[in-house]
């Protein structure tokens, strides 16, 4: 059998058009003295990849390049030598289609279910000290950048602090649960939970509430965030998602990095909404167990929905309060500038989703109406 190609002496870039011959015993000869003759299985053959010519390296150092892949594969199967397994995968439609379906299935499963589940396991497996570490310094930054000292009367503070302590779970000593009061400044009515157990409510939120029970329902939601390790889960899922998207798109050029932003935003919002839903569940279950009325959370959430923080004033005037400026987006931005976005789980409701439906996909919170409905119907869960 014969193969056509180009021969290099292995020392210079001079190429000869050449033909090599393989006889029945698998002995290769080329007619060039510097190649010599040898057995076929002594030749090192590079893996096949697409149409790209393959190189055959002779023991004497000479290199023969050929693009006659079919003939070469035939010779390899006859006289031994490694068949390229990868090329087999790449050239058969059935393998390519399976690879396609497997990849798509794994990517979808991992990004929608795998990452949230894995981050939950990781967050609970890590020692509670980690929660303290990641919360370190966050309160100082928030005080420095966002909050002002609270103006609430000490009566209100004391009464709420007392209620807060009663709400804590039995094994609360693992974390440093603490209720803090602050003036929300530009953020207005809002509540935050830090992973180490600090729960912050703003004066504006306290004033917006009609009664103490409404505030209690919000506190329970925040305790839910802490108890269920939501900050840590956020960090883990964020990191895993970034790694996954990088693996998929690897060497995509700069223009396409833009494309990456979209699935990232959609998935991050879906994770966040899931956690909010879970914190709601925590609040709901607690209230039901203790025979408290769950109406309060629903009432408060809907009042909060129509409330606009001071920061939104400009847009509010221009758009008559209907323009799709999501307060969540504003808060996320603020948090990023304080470089602690992952350490604080923010709590804020969004505008109604009925007339801006698509926005609910990029919001960090589920639609308020859905959340409120759950507390009104009290589904048996």
């Amino acid at each position, binding site marked *: 059998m014969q193969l056509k190609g180009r021969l*290099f002496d*292995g*020392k*210079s*870039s*001079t*190429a000869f058009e050449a033909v090599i011959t393989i006889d029945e015993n698998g002995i290769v000869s080329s007619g060039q003295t510097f190649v010599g003759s040898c057995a076929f299985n002594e030749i090192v053959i590079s893996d096949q*990849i*697409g*149409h*790209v*010519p393959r*190189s055959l*390296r002779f023991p004497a*150092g000479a*290199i023969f390049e050929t693009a006659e892949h079919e003939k070469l594969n035939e010779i390899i199967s006859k006289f031994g030598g490694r068949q390229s397994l*990868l090329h087999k*995968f*790449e*050239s058969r439609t059935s*393998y*390519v289609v399976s*690879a*396609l379906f*497997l*990849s798509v299935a*794994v*990517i979808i499963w991992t990004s929608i279910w795998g990452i949230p589940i894995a981050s939950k396991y990781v967050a609970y497996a890590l020692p509670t000290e980690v929660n303290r*570490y*990641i919360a*370190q*310094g966050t309160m100082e930054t928030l005080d420095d*950048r966002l909050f002002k000292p609270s103006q609430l009367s000490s009566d209100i503070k004391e009464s709420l602090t007392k209620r807060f302590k009663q709400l804590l779970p039995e094994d609360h000593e693992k974390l440093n649960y603490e209720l803090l009061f602050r003036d929300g*400044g530009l953020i207005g009515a809002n509540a935050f939970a830090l992973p180490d157990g600090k729960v912050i409510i703003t004066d504006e939120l306290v004033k917006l509430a009609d009664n103490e029970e409404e505030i209690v329902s919000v506190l329970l939601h925040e305790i839910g965030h802490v108890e269920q390790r939501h900050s840590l889960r956020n960090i883990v899922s964020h990191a895993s998602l970034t*790694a996954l998207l990088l*693996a*998929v*798109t*690897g*060497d*995509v*050029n*700069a*223009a*396409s990095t*833009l*494309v990456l932003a*979209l699935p990232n935003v959609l998935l991050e919002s879906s994770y966040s909404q899931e956690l909010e839903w879970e914190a709601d569940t925590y609040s709901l279950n607690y209230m039901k167990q203790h025979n408290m009325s769950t109406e309060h959370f629903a009432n408060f959430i809907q009042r909060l929905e129509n409330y606009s923080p001071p920061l939104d004033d400009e847009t509010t005037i*221009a*758009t*008559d309060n*209907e*323009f*799709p400026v999501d307060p969540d987006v504003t808060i996320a931005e603020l948090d990023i500038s304080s470089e602690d976005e992952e350490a604080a789980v923010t709590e804020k409701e969004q505008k109604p989703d009925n*007339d801006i439906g698509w926005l609910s996909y990029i919001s960090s919170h589920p639609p308020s109406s859905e959340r409120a409905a759950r507390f009104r119907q009290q589904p048996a869960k």
Partner: protein
Amino acid sequence: MTENPPLIRSIPFQFKGTASEYFKIWIVNLCLTIFTVGIYSAWAKVRTLRYFYGSTWLDNNNFSYLADPLKILKGRIIAFTALIAYFLIWEIYPEAGFWILAAGVLFFPTIMVLALSFNMNNSAYRNVRFSFARDFKNAYVIFIIPILIILGLTWLGYSLLESADFIATLENQEESGFKKEDLLPSVFMLSLLPMLPYLDYIRSRFIVDNTRYGKSDASFHTGGWSFYKIYLKAFLYFFLVGIFASILIGVFAVISGFGEASTEEQIESASGLGLISVFVFYGFSFIIMAYVRAARTNMIFNHIRFGENTFNSKLKTMPVFWLYLTNTLAVIVSVGLLIPWAQIRMAKYVADNTEFEARTLDDIEAAKQSQNGALGEELGDAFDLDIGL
């Protein structure tokens, strides 16, 4: 710069890869990378580059990529470990962040040189490897000096601002929450931006000047001004587009009575307008990106000499823009499945618009006779690293 010797012949580059062939390689790579939790990515990289190099032809010969995946894997493990360590330390001891950053700065030039040398040594044409002179000393010089200049400018600008009266007035206003430290990032950016073309210039020059193929040294024959011209032009376009877009949006806003918008229709048209301006903005950003890509590539390649030989790079802004736009749309619509098609189109366009201009017979002969870096020679270097830069 001295005149180029007369042209003997122009040899076009050719790219023979096809999207259907590369798609199969890509999807198998992706699948294996996912199932090996990323370990296979080193092999995937080698296979991808072997395909792209092997499909690029010049004068009836193709290029080849010869890297050992294990070495790439080693580099990736080191980089990954360092990254994890960095995040952990940053998360637990935020104060240490600065020192880690400083250590990173100290290592960066070394890593850059090692990676360049790895990539050059593993690129070959006609059985002869490219090589890269490991000029660590100059790598540090070109890296440290600009950093010092930028820091110096930042310090100068900041201390000038610090002494200005209005800063103190602003800071004293209780409500504003303004702190003079807030200005530091902006001052830093203002010092960094004018240096960027220069940084690009010295980096490009460093890479070209240390590259070698066989016995021919590459050399770079232009000054920093060529880079400034391109970046200034891009900046000017960006500025003009910004003004134009704001005027356009302003006019539309007035027409649609946005100022006293209250009815639902007006609000809808306003948000529609917002959406349109976002698309227009992205469109123009793509044009500017395409301009920089085309102009910069042409300028760099047209000032490289390989021995006495030169290149002729003829990329054009609008075709590159068209490629960017259609590639991006295709990737979005296909949920990523057309990424291979997009990559192949780009490679084909670049190859089709690049020529090698042979100007001496001597050099070609010299390369042919070269005993250096022939295939099969073991590099045997434990320090070869490939860390994506």
